[in-house]
């Protein structure tokens, strides 16, 4: 079982790796240059100690120095170093380009994908998770890729090159290095394994503390209102002390890794020193070669440590890449039909026997029939979760019906382009989404070519002109990402202005005035009324007072339309609607 899991994981890794290669392919030239430069710089770094050693061998003692040879070797070192320096820079530049460009391409692909994903996917996946894939995962992937490119290849070359040269020089000393060096890797792995427990404990306690901090600081006003400060501090101190203790263990034990591996390296160094000194005494090697061995011995462990780091990083990077590819592999929404048409609707909407469910075994809407004549005003009411917003999702074709059909002017909406269908609706939602940008840009979002007069007229109609004018930069005020500088109600007014500017043939208002106080709402209602004249409109509202004027009121409960008619007929019927209405106003 476990074996097959491992196999599957490895298969996934190799699949992911192949796809990563596809993304790297456009930068093949840079990859080639990078590998070439890595080879050059490694070769240079290995040769310089040899030249150095040779040079030392040409200075044996007083009056026994071969100046011509030393000079020749000095020039050789200078040339090699110059070539290597250039190669190092090109290597770094190529690696930067490959990683940054690949991550850019991945991010662009991801954002393009998001535009095509069905809403069912986006609604069911927390956006924080998707943001972290597109930003954090791509970053980790890029870091891993960069490290892989810079260190993996040159690390392997360094190890092979060093081994080759040492073997060429002296077998016995090479054996000492080869046998002892891996010890430091084992030691590092041993410590890591032992300290893992402490780290997990630290993470856990830190999580507890962060949760407590979040809660108490978020709720500081309540803490103060209840004079609960001392108790809070006691609670906090308890966790804080505990974290201190756990952290000390985690930090101390993990910080033992470096000194321990250094110890092994130092022992290798001493052993190499001993054996080469003994061989030097017997004339087996020269002093210069001894210096070569010592410098190799001190460097030999480095690529090993680096590579073990790189392998973890690369695995991590591949895991991140796999998460991104998962996103890119999600099936797209059904594309527009080949023969899909575009037209401007007269406002005739028919729902025939519509059935819909988000989850297969939980039917939400069933056998829904509705015939909306051009210019009619349809209000949808009902308790929370009854399917009001779902109906709007279907009208806009954010979701496709499971059964039945929805037609606009007699054309099934699956035979219209989405662009044309959605262009026929103007939509204001309870969720007041605005783009980071100026107020002007936001109002003109649907019609970037609108003139200043048109924008101001739309703002006036939405009763937004007043507060916009009072803002320090007026229409040029920049709305920040979280919209902290304007209130929820003001945002809703801007969303309304945005739709008013487009003036599409049909309107959808889903709790469009929920954050606006009732007095302002009445004024906006008037603007809507003007706007809705001659336009088919769908209104979802929880305040029944806002929908009394509708031509048809649909009362929904558990996915069914249980009552349908005008306010007067429904009140006369004294059914569910009347009960709902009276619960709001009776008292």
């Amino acid at each position, binding site marked *: 079982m476990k074996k097959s899991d491992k196999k599957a994981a490895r298969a996934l890794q190799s699949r992911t790796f192949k796809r990563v290669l596809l993304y790297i392919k456009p930068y093949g030239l840079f990859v080639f240059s990078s590998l070439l430069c890595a080879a050059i710089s490694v070769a240079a770094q290995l040769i310089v100690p040899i030249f150095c050693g040779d040079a030392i061998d040409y200075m044996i003692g007083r009056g026994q120095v071969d100046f011509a040879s030393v000079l020749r070797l000095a020039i050789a070192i200078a040339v090699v170093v110059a070539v290597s320096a250039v190669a190092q820079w090109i290597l770094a530049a190529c690696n930067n380009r490959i990683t940054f460009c690949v991550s850019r391409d991945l991010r662009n692909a991801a954002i393009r994908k998001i535009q095509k994903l069905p809403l069912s996917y986006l609604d069911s996946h927390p956006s924080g998770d998707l*943001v972290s894939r597109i930003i954090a995962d791509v970053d980790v992937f890029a870091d891993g890729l960069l490290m892989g490119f810079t260190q993996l290849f040159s690390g392997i070359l360094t190890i092979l090159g060093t081994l080759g040269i040492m073997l060429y020089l002296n077998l016995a000393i090479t054996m000492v290095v080869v046998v002892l060096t891996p010890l430091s890797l084992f030691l590092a792995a041993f410590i890591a394994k032992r300290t893992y427990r402490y780290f997990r404990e630290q993470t856990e306690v830190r999580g507890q503390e962060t949760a407590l901090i979040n809660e108490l600081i978020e709720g500081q006003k309540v803490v103060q209102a209840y004079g609960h400060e001392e108790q809070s501090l006691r609670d906090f101190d308890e966790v804080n002390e505990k974290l201190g203790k756990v952290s000390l263990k985690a930090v101390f034990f993990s910080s033992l890794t470096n000194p321990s591996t250094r110890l092994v390296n130092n022992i290798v160094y001493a052993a190499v020193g001993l054996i080469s000194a003994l061989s030097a005494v017997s004339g087996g090697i020269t002093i210069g070669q001894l210096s070569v061995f010592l410098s190799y011995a001190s460097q030999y462990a480095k690529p090993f440590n680096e590579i073990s780091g790189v392998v973890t990083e690369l695995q991590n990077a591949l895991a991140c890449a796999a998460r991104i590819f998962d996103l890119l592999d999600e099936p797209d929404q059904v594309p527009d039909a080949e023969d899909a048409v575009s037209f401007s609707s007269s406002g005739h909407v028919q729902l025939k026997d519509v059935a819909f469910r988000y989850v297969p075994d939980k039917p939400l809407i069933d056998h829904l029939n509705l015939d909306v004549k051009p210019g009619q005003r349809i209000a949808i009411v009902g308790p929370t979760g009854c399917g009001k917003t779902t109906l709007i999702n279907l009208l806009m074709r954010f979701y496709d019906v499971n059964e039945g059909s929805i037609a606009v002017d007699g054309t099934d909406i699956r035979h219209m382009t989405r662009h044309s269908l959605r262009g026929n609706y103007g939509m204001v939602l309870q969720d007041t989404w605005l*783009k*980071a940008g100026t107020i002007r840009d936001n109002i003109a979002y649907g019609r970037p070519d609108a003139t200043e007069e048109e924008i101001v007229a739309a703002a006036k109609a939405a009763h937004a002109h007043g507060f916009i004018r009072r803002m320090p930069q007026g229409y040029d005020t920049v709305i920040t990402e979280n919209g902290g500088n304007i209130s929820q109600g003001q945002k809703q007014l801007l969303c309304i202005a945005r739709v008013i500017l487009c003036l599409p043939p049909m309107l959808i208002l889903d709790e469009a005035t929920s954050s606006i106080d009732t007095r302002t709402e009445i004024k906006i209602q008037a603007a809507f009324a003007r706007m809705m004249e001659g336009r088919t409109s769908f209104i979802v509202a929880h305040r029944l007072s806002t929908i009394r004027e509708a031509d048809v009121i649909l009362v929904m409960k558990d996915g069914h339309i249980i009552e349908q008619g005008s306010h007067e007929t429904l009140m006369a019927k004294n059914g569910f609607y009347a009960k709902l209405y009276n619960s709001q106003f009776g008292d």
Partner: protein
Amino acid sequence: MKYLKIYLKDHKAASILAPLFKMLEATFDLLVPIVVANIINIGIAGKDMGYILRSCGLLILMALVGLACSFTAQYFAAKAAIASTTGLRHLLFKHIQTLGFSEMDTIGSSTLITRMTSDLNQVQNGLNLFLRLFLRSPFIVLGAIVMAFTINTQMALIFVVAIPILSIIIFGIMRWTSPRYKQIQAKLDGVTGATRENLSGVRVIRAFGKEEAEVQGFSQANDSLVKKQLHVGHISALMNPLTYVVVNIGIIAILYMGANKVNGGTLLSGDIIALVNYMTQILLELVKLANLIVSISRALASLNRVEQVLDTKPSMAFPEVSAETAQSSEAVRFDHVGLVYAGAGAESLTDISFCAKKGQTIGVIGGTGSGKSSLVHLIPRFYDATSGSVSLMGKPVQEWERAALRNKVGIVMQKAQLFAGTIRSNLLWGNSEATDEELWAALQTAQAKEFVLAKKDGLDEIVEQGGRNLSGGQRQRLTIARALVKKPEILILDDSASALDYATDAALRKSLKSLPDSVTVFIVSQRTSSIQHADQILVLDDGRLVGRGTHGELLDSCEIYREIYESQFQKGDARQ
């Protein structure tokens, strides 16, 4: 630094011993090339096997002692760093608790949370690194020069020239790049923002058919990020090759000058190997130092942010004991009160005057942003009025001792905030001595008894963080019950029935009438139905008191009240 110093002083021994032991370890590192040089110069040259064996034994001994020193240093550094930051975190938390509403509004709770968590972690890591390494690297660099001088004064001059050049390259490149990394971060934040925007606005983007435009905008932000990354990357990529060149020029100089000296008999070949070793060691340490400076400057920035909070002094002072005053029939009096929030340009409340008698029910109504919450927040002195005066029980709020004042006033805020624990532990916030009977009575009044009874563990039902396992309406009723447990003389419900349905809201208002007669109740609401039976209704518009009176009076005299009322009830039957 001043606050961190307090705690470092408490761990003086550890914070001195850590760098000391680290330097001891570094000393052994510095001695290695000399021992090796002696092996060559004395052992090999003299064919002295014993000397070679002894020297290599010495190398291993040095490695072992170095290891012991290093462990000791790591322990003391970790101890000093963690203990001081733990202390600092305690101090910071304690301090944040003393900050008033006004400071909390200006700083923002999310900022404070970051300072308490990631900033302090950053400080801990930075301090740990600092204690371990900050003396070590300069010590090795200087030590290497000193060693070079002991070998040969003239050869040491190569080091004297090379080290400043290396330093200039390393620190110069770092100085150029580090502000630019911040720019890269800003560009990345832009890309993150665009991503988040695309996800949160997916319905609007599709409704307006702007998918392609969004992709274009995103890819522009992305391109500009890559351009900056490449620009900075190309420059910082210069560091390695440049230092490599300088160090090797140094080595060439050592070889060439060394050849002359060896020929003259003033230098041995082992010495040359030692000098070359020192040169490479210096490069490694300088690069380490550069990275260390990056981490430490990051930690210092975090420390600054933490200390900034500690430097923020609470703007409100409470007297130690409440001033004595005669009995008064007035519960709350506002006298020409005005309020300007810190950092705001305009007044949020202007010239408000009214008086609430003990036992009265006061309704406060007005549109969003009309100043309803601001008004009631002045009663428990969450903020100080910027003009005029607020009195409680006939005494200005500034003369009340903090605990006494907050005990008199029970406020239920708009946001229903519960804390992780149980239903009981949350209710006991109101009064830690309360009996179960008192808790149930409060729950009954708050219309919460029924659903608490329905819970498996009743009062001991677990409340998750922020009360997320309860519905909005349940949370709201529990916060009302919590305030009632306190048995306050003034009860303020700040729009705290918004998540309740109309029937529960009505039942709640009815049961509030059963509170003792002396309790003054403020009900803030947007719904006229919630307040129409109040003894006195205050109508706010844009921070001004535009109407005061009973429901009937206001319908006749206050146009804004009438408009609000009519917007919620059908026209014509407003007077029913």
